[in-house]
Structures are given as C-alpha cells and as structure tokens.
C-alpha cells in the first residue's frame, strides 16, 4: 500500500513537472536601477586552447571601455565590464552566458571569440532577449542566421565570414598574382579550413584556374614533408593554406626548405607573431593573407589606435586586439544611440548601424546582422608586413 502511494506521488510529480517545465526560461533581470553605470558582459576564452584569441580580444575591448569611461562614459553612465572565463569550452560558454544574463544583469554580452563557443551562447541570448556580439566568429552557417536562414534577432558580429575570405584570396590569386594553377593544403580538422578551401576552389575555378592538388592535414601536425614532397613534382603558381598559424608556419618553413618558391596564400589564421617564430624571416617572402585590418593603413584612426595600444602594452596590436577595440566602441555607440539600457532597444540600435567607423574599417550592419566591410590582403617580406591591398565586398 505504502509503495503504491509513493509510486502515485512520484508519478504525479513527474507528469506535473514534465508538462510544466518545458517552457522555463527566466526573465532577464536588467538591474541598472541607478542608471549611473551600465553592465556589459565579457564571455571570452581566457584559458584553454584558444586563449590567445580570447585574451587579445578582451585587451582591445577593455581598452575601448577605459577610453570611453575616461571621456565621461556613455551618456554619463560608466561602463562596468563583467569578465568571465569560459575555458574555451562550449558548455562553459553556455553557462557563462546564462550567468551574465540572469545573475549579473548585463545589457549585452560580448564574445566568445570562436564560432563554436559563440554558437553555444546563441540560444541563451535568444531566450533572455539580450544581444550577444562577437568580433571574430567567422563561421558561415549557424551564427547570425539559423539553419533555415532566419536571422537570429539578438545575434550580431562585426567581422566578415569565412567564405568572403576564401573568395577574396581566390580573386587575389587570379587577379593580382595572375595565377592559373593552385595547390590547396587545408586544415581538415577545422571547419574554418574546410570552408575556406571550398570557397577558394569555387572562385578560383570560376575565374579559369585549376586546382592541381588538394591535400589535408590535422591540427597539431608537425611534419608536412610527405605532403610537400608529393606536390613538389607538380606544376603550380600558388599554394593556398587555409589553416591556423601553428601549422601554417611549419608548412611554409618546410616548403621553403624543400625549395618550393611559389607564393603562399592564407587567411586571418596567419595573423600571429608565432608565424614568424615558426617559419623564420627567410621563409616568409611572397606570403599573402587576408585580414581584418592592416597596421600599414595610414588612416589616422588606425594609426591613433596603434600608437595608443603600443603605449599601453608595448607591442603592436594584432587583428584580434583591433576587432576587440571596435567591438567595445560598437556596443558603446549602440547604447548611446539607443539612449537606453533596455536590451531590446540596444538590439535595435545595433541592427540599425550605418557608417560605423572603426579601426577595422567602416561598415553598415547588413540585414542578416553581418557587417558589410572590406578585407585587407597583407603581403609579407622577410616576415614583415610590407604591402596591403583593400578588397571591397561585391
């Protein structure tokens, strides 16, 4: 009898909760009661695999916030950054986003830096109706639009996506370098590498070029001599390496050691001082990669940023620093224009951005929450940035 009773209680509870729990999202508590300060969440990879991206972005964001606060804040409100580490882990990114939006009462959340971790925060943002913005989530699919192509209202980014970079580099190869035959050595373990390779191939072939070989490697590989010896016997004008600097640096060094002299092309994954450390200055000639900004740009905005960053940190800023800085300025600008700390009003202001002039270029926010901005193709000579060409979106 007792068992029957407890079973009855158990089953009622279970059925009750199964029906009640399905729609349980908390209301966001945007607690900016005194209106003297505004809280902005920073959900970044400060430790773990991609910590260098996260830390670089956060440096830029905090620099922007410091400047804004020193100049009197946004409409008199001081920005209070709430910085939490997500350990480069996607589940932790979800947890941090939830914490920022339901516990800390932020009006908007910045980051994470990488696409996967950023995607993990999107459902939280959509549920809490608080905007999330990434400066460097470049994945083509699943970021600002869902898999059916609908725009995620509360999700923004201020970088171009991977396919744009693949297209840019292919146009650069066939246009500026007049290349007819190309070899692709792609990072098979990242979607970034695969996406870039796909778009490069399509654009390059459409322009009348041929891809004579497409080789693949996996992240953390060290020895690429097998691949390089294989392609050495073939005839080609350029090598395209869609991947990150750890492997690209080694590939370039080993290729040059084998006597492969063809120009090497890459994308923003090349942008790190580590590339120079791994490949050495002699190997880094005739190397071109697309990036978000170039320190060679003589625009006073860019030069001022570089000078200020150097004064503060004693090193040249990289693209992640610049993107982070723009991200900080962009959210502040949106809050100012919204003239409100209501996340929905901020979201509308973010979407309604026209002619925002940042270090990484001037852009309008597009319909699909991707910025319409240009890329820069940087040329290296003895490991130093020597040339930069601006490529506008079509």
């Amino acid at each position, binding site marked *: 009898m007792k068992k029957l009773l407890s079973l009855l209680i*158990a089953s009622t509870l279970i059925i009750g*909760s*199964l029906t009640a*729990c399905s729609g349980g999202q*908390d209301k966001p508590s945007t607690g900016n009661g005194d209106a003297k300060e505004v809280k902005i969440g920073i959900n970044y990879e*400060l430790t773990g695999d991609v910590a260098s991206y996260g830390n670089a972005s956060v440096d830029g964001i905090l620099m922007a916030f410091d400047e804004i606060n020193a100049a009197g804040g946004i409409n008199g409100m001081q920005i209070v950054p709430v910085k939490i*580490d997500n350990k480069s882990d996607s589940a932790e990114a979800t947890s*941090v986003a939830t914490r920022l939006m339901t516990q800390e009462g932020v009006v908007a959340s910045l980051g994470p830096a990488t696409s996967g971790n950023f995607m993990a925060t999107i459902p939280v943002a959509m549920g809490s109706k608080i905007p999330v913005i990434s400066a460097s989530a470049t994945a083509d699919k699943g970021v600002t639009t869902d898999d059916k192509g609908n725009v995620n209202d509360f999700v923004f980014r201020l970088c171009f996506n991977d396919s744009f970079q693949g297209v840019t580099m292919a146009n650069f190869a066939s246009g500026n370098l007049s290349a007819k035959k190309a070899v692709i050595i792609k990072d098979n373990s990242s979607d970034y590498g695969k996406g870039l390779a796909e778009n490069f191939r399509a654009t390059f072939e459409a322009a009348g070029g041929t891809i004579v070989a497409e080789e693949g490697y996996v992240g953390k590989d060290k020895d690429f001599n097998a691949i390089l010896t294989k392609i050495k016997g073939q005839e080609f004008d350029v090598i395209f390496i869609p991947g990150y600097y750890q492997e690209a640096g080694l590939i370039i060094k080993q290729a040059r050691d084998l006597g492969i002299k063809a120009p090497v092309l890459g994308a923003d994954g090349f942008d790190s001082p580590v590339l120079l450390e791994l490949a050495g200055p002699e190997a880094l000639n005739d190397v071109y990669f697309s990036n978000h900004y170039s320190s060679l740009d003589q625009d006073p905005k860019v030069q001022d940023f570089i000078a200020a960053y150097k004064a503060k940190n004693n090193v040249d800023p990289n693209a992640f620093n610049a993107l982070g800085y723009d991200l900080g300025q962009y959210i502040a600008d949106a809050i100012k224009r919204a003239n409100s700390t209501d996340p929905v009003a901020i979201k509308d202001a973010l979407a309604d951005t026209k002619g925002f002039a940042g270090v990484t270029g001037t852009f309008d926010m597009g319909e699909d929450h991707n910025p319409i901005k240009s890329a820069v193709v940087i040329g290296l000579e003895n490991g130093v940035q020597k040339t930069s060409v601006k490529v506008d979106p079509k």
Partner: protein
Amino acid sequence: MRVLSKKNIITLLLIVAVFAVVQVLISVKIINSFYEITLATICINIILAVSLNLVTGFTGQFSLGHAGFMSIGAYVCALISMNTDSTLGFIFGILAGAVAAAIVGVIIGIPTLRLKGDYLAIATLGMAEIIRVLFLNMEITNGAAGLSGIPRNTNWTWLFIFLMATIILINNFIRSSHGRACISIREDEIAAESMGVNTTKYKVMAFALGAFFAGIAGGLYASYFYFIKPNVFGFMKSVDVLVIVVLGGLGSISGSVIAAILLAVLTTFLQQFTEIRMIIYALLLVAIMLFRPQGLLGTKEITDMFKSNKNTEKIE
C-alpha cells in the same frame, strides 16, 4: 515479496523527496537557470563517473576512452532529436545513442580487453581518438563546426530519471553474481580465472554497460547544451571523468556521486576568479589526493558509514 522490503520503500521515498525538493526550488526560482546548468552538469557527470567506476573501479580495467562513448550517445541523440523534435524523439534518441555506444563498446572491448593496465589505457585512448576523428570527418555530423541548434529537451525531471536509473541499475549489477565476478577480476584476475570466472566475458560486459550509460550521459549533454562538436569529447573529457572517479574512490558509487557534486560546485564557485581558477582547482585536487589517496570514500559506500557510526562524522 523482497521488492516491498522496508529498506526499498525508504530508498524510494528518499528518492522522491530529493526530486520533489529540487523541483520545488526550481519552480520558486531559488535554483535559477544559471544554477540549473550546474545541476545538469552534476547529473551528467554523475552518470559518467558511476558508469566509468563500473569499468575502472569495480572491474579494474583502466579506461581512458569514456568521452568517446559519450560522444556517440551525444551525436546519435542530437541527430535524431533534430529530425524529430518531440519528447518521444528525445527519449528514442537517448536510448538509440546508448545502444549504439554499447555496441561499439562490445566491438572494441573484445580485442582490447585482453590487454592489461597501461596497454589497455592506451588502447582505449586511441579508440576514443578514432571516434572523435570519425565525427570530425563525417558529413552528417557537420565536421569540426559541430551540430548547433539541438532542441533542448533535457530538464531536471529527465536528468533525475536517468540519473536514478543509472545508479540503481549499476548498483544492482554490482551486487549480482555478474558484479561479484567483475570485482573478483579487479582483486586478482588469475585467481578469478582459476575459479572458473570467464574474465573476458565479464570485462566486455562491464565495458559495454559502462559505454551504454556514457551514451545516455552524452545524449543528455547534447540536448541540454544546444551545441556539440568533436573537440568537446577530447582526451581531457575522459580525464575529467576519471578525476571524479579517483577522487570519489575507485569502487564507490556514492563516492563518485559526492565527488561529482563537489567538483561541479567548486568549478561554479571558482568561475569568478578567472585568472587563478585552474590553479586553485588543481591545488585542491593535489591536496585531496595527498590526504586521502584512496579517494574520498575509498571502496566504501555512504550507506556503510551509517552502519558503523564511528566514521560518519569524518565524512560529513
């Protein structure tokens, strides 16, 4: 009827009470959606740790491939529930994922479980890497970008149901004659064999059962955290689970439960100390292992403590 014994009724009432208390706390928002994530992490980690404990703690087979089985469950459940977004699809997805993981467990277990100690650890590690690289290169799993937009069907009720099912089933398995055979393998494989225990059979059985529940944990993970990618289930995930098992005590189910709760609470608490959190976390682990090398509970269960009152205070 033994099923209706006083002990079982008390256990059942206790389970229902725990469930009801947490459910009430959630509905009055004392446990808000942030703490709910911690709660989900705890439940998933307990399922992982208890199932790994069956393999490593009770059967004595050192496995470093638990994340591999978890990923099978996660991907199968994610793909099924993305195609049929309903409670039925979710349940079917979890069970299908668990069965798939168990089948892979048997296939991998038969050749590798002839190895011992370090060799087995390396073989299972390699197995988990193979699974990860497969998911990395398959079209249907969307490669390295992972699957996003998985519908969230997991809630406290489902977590609790699967958690309790795991604990009760594994607990009963260990107390069955099969379980005793597994423990005898851990204690002395040669002696067990000479007593007529078919060691390979029982090792594969424990391995497959562990894989089954790891698959369930993976399914729950996928449908709670919206997003999975192959790198989530890397080597470090297996190590995280192993840390829980060793910390709680090899061969103690309640030890795994306590250690999983402890570590999850610790991680959540340390989230605010961004720069030094991993140092504190590691230092605490070192300290605990120095002072209790056998793990928090050793091979004892929490229920054993109540029988001899001497030890109760020490643990509390």
